[in-house]
C-alpha cells in the first residue's frame, strides 16, 4: 500500500514538479493552493502525510496546522519551504509539524522523509538540529528551572549534535552503540519537548533574537 500524500503550496509549478518527482514513490491524493482550500480538502481526503508550504497568503502553513491539528490528529505534516530561517522552522515545529525540509532537497530524500514522517518519526535536518541545540544551549547565566522538563538529556543532546554534524540515523546508532529505534525515540522526545514543555526557554530564546 503506497502512502497517500497531499500537497499544499501556492505555486502551481512547484506542485506539478513535486507530483512528477514523487509519483513513483507515493500516491498524491490532492493539492491545494490556499489555506481555506487546504483545510477543507485535507479534511475530505484524510491523507497520511501533508506536504505543507510555510509561506502562503492568509497565514501560511501554520494556519493550516492550527486548523487541522485538533480535528485530524492522525494526519501528519511535513513542512517544505524555501526558508530555513529559525523562526519559520521553530514556528512550524511548535505548531505541530513532524518534520521540516527545505525545497532544495532531492526527490529521493523527500520520499524518504515522507515515509519516516508517516511512520511516526521526526525528520530533523542538520540545520534544524542546530537551531534546537542553540535553543537549549547550556548558558551559565540561565536560571535552573525545571531540569526534568526544561532540559534535553545529555543523550538527546548527543544525538542532536550528531544529526547536526550530518549523520544519518543509522550512523548515529553505530556511533553511540545504540539501536536505530533508540535514536528515533530520542529524536521524537526532542520534538515533544520542543512543542510542549519548553515554553520558557524557547520564548526567551525567540525574544532574544527578536523572532517574536
Amino acid at each position, binding site marked *: 500500500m503506497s502512502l497517500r500524500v497531499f500537497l499544499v503550496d501556492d505555486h502551481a509549478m512547484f506542485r506539478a514538479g513535486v507530483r512528477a518527482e514523487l509519483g513513483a514513490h507515493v500516491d498524491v491524493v490532492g493539492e491545494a493552493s490556499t489555506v481555506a482550500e487546504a483545510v477543507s480538502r485535507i479534511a475530505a481526503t484524510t491523507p497520511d502525510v501533508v506536504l505543507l508550504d510555510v509561506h502562503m497568503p492568509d497565514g501560511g502553513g501554520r494556519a493550516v496546522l492550527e486548523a487541522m491539528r485538533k480535528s485530524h490528529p492522525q494526519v501528519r505534516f511535513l513542512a517544505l519551504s524555501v526558508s530555513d530561517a529559525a523562526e519559520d522552522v521553530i514556528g512550524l515545529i511548535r505548531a505541530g509539524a513532524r518534520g521540516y525540509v527545505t525545497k532544495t532537497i532531492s526527490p529521493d530524500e523527500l520520499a524518504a522523509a515522507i515515509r519516516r514522517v508517516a511512520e511516526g518519526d521526526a525528520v530533523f535536518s542538520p540545520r534544524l538540529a542546530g537551531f534546537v541545540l542553540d535553543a537549549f544551549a547550556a548558558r551559565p547565566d540561565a536560571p535552573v528551572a525545571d531540569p526534568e522538563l526544561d532540559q534535553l538529556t545529555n543523550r538527546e543532546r548527543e544525538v542532536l549534535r550528531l544529526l547536526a554534524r*550530518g549523520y544519518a540515523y543509522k550512523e548515529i546508532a553505530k556511533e553511540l552503540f545504540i539501536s536505530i529505534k533508540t535514536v528515533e525515540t530520542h529524536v521524537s522526545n526532542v520534538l515533544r519537548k520542543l512543542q510542549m514543555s519548553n515554553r520558557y526557554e524557547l520564548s526567551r530564546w525567540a525574544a532574544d533574537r527578536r523572532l517574536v
Partner: protein
Amino acid sequence: MIDTARQPRRLFRARDHRVVAGVASGLARHLRVSPLAVRAAFVILLGFNGLGLMLYAGFWAVLPYERVTGEPRRRDVAQLVPFIAIGVGLILLQVLVLGENAGVTGTAGWLVAIVAVGAGIIWHESTPERRRQWTEALPRFPWLGTFLEESDRRLFLFRFIGGGLLVAVGVIGMVAVYVPAENSEAVVNGMLFAGLGLAGVAVVAAPVLWRTMSLLRAEREGRIRETERAELAAMVHDQVLHTLALIQRNADDVKAVQRLARGQERSLRNWLYKPTASPTERFAAALEEAAAEVEDTYAIAVEVVVVGDRETDERVAALVMAAREALVNAARHAGVATVSLYAEVEEDQLSVFVRDRGAGFDMESVEENRHGVRGSILGRMSRHGGRAEIRSELGDGTEVRLFLPMDRDVVTSGRER
C-alpha cells in the same frame, strides 16, 4: 510581526468607548490603564481650579483622531452623568471647605479653563479633517453633511467667533477678578496674567506646530519605505536578474548553472534572514564566509550549521583556516556534491566537524610531501593549542574533527550580540 512590535505607540483620541471626545479612553489605551481611572483623574483635577477641564481641552485640541476603518461607535452618554455629578460635587466641596478665599482663585481657574476650551474649539474647527469626521459620524443625516459642507465657511466663522468669545470672556473675567487688588499682589498677578497670556498663545500655536510635525513625520516614514523599496529593487536587479540572465546563457552547462544558482540563493538568504556580522569579527560569520568561498570555487554545496557564536582572535582564525582546508580537501578529493560543516561554541572549547560521504582515504598512504592535511590541519591546530582528528574509511567518507580549548571568560554566545 516584527514591524508592529517596533512601531512606536502613537497617542490618539479613541473613537470607540468615548464619552465626550475620546481623550480619556485614548490616553488610557496609550498608558495601558483603565479608562475609568483616567476619567476619574480628570474629574478630580477639576477640583484644582478647573485644571482637569484645561487639560482635557488641551488634549482635545492637540491629539488627532484615531484612524479607524468602519463605522465609529456612538458615544456612551449615560457614562457622562456620574462624572458630571462627581465633578459638580467636587467643586461645591472645594467652595464650601475653602470658603471665601477659594472663590477668587477658583473663579480665575474656571476662567482659564473657559479660555482653554475656547482655544480648543478654534483649533478644532479650523481643520478640514474635523469637518469630514462630522459628516462621517452622521451617516443617517446626509442633508446635515451637505449643510456642513456648503456652509463650512460660515460655520467655521461662527465657531471661530464663538471660541474667540470664550477666550475674550475668560480674559476679561480674569482682569475683572484681579484688578481691584491694589497691593503688592497686583505685581504678582500681573506676571501671572502675562504667563496666562503666553500659555494661551502656546495653546493656540501648539496644535499648528504639532500637526506640522506629524505631517513631517509621516512624510519621513514614507520616504524611508520608499528608500527600502528602492534598495530591494536595486539588489534584485544587480544580483538576481543578472544571475538569471547568466543561467539562461549557460543553460547547457549544468555545473555552471548550479554554481550560479547556489551563489545567488546564498546571497539572497543572507540578505533576507541573516543579521549582518563581519567575518573578521565573528566566528560564525567567518566560517560561513569560508564555506561560501569553497562552494563558489569547487561547485559543491556546503551545509553549514553553527551553534553559538563568539569573537574571533588569532587562534579562532587559525581554526577557521583549518576548517576551510578540510572543506577544500573534501571538495577536491571526496567526489561528492554535499559536505556538511558543523561548529559548536561551548563554554570551554570550540569544535568544528567537516564531514563528507565520499571516497575516503587511508592516512597511512598519504605521501610525506603532501602538506594539505599535515601542515594546514593537524600542524596548524597543534601550533595553536588545539587538536585535530581525522577519521576516514575507504568508501565510507571522511570526518575531520577540530577542537580548540578556550578560556571560559572570553566565550560569548550568539544571543548576547
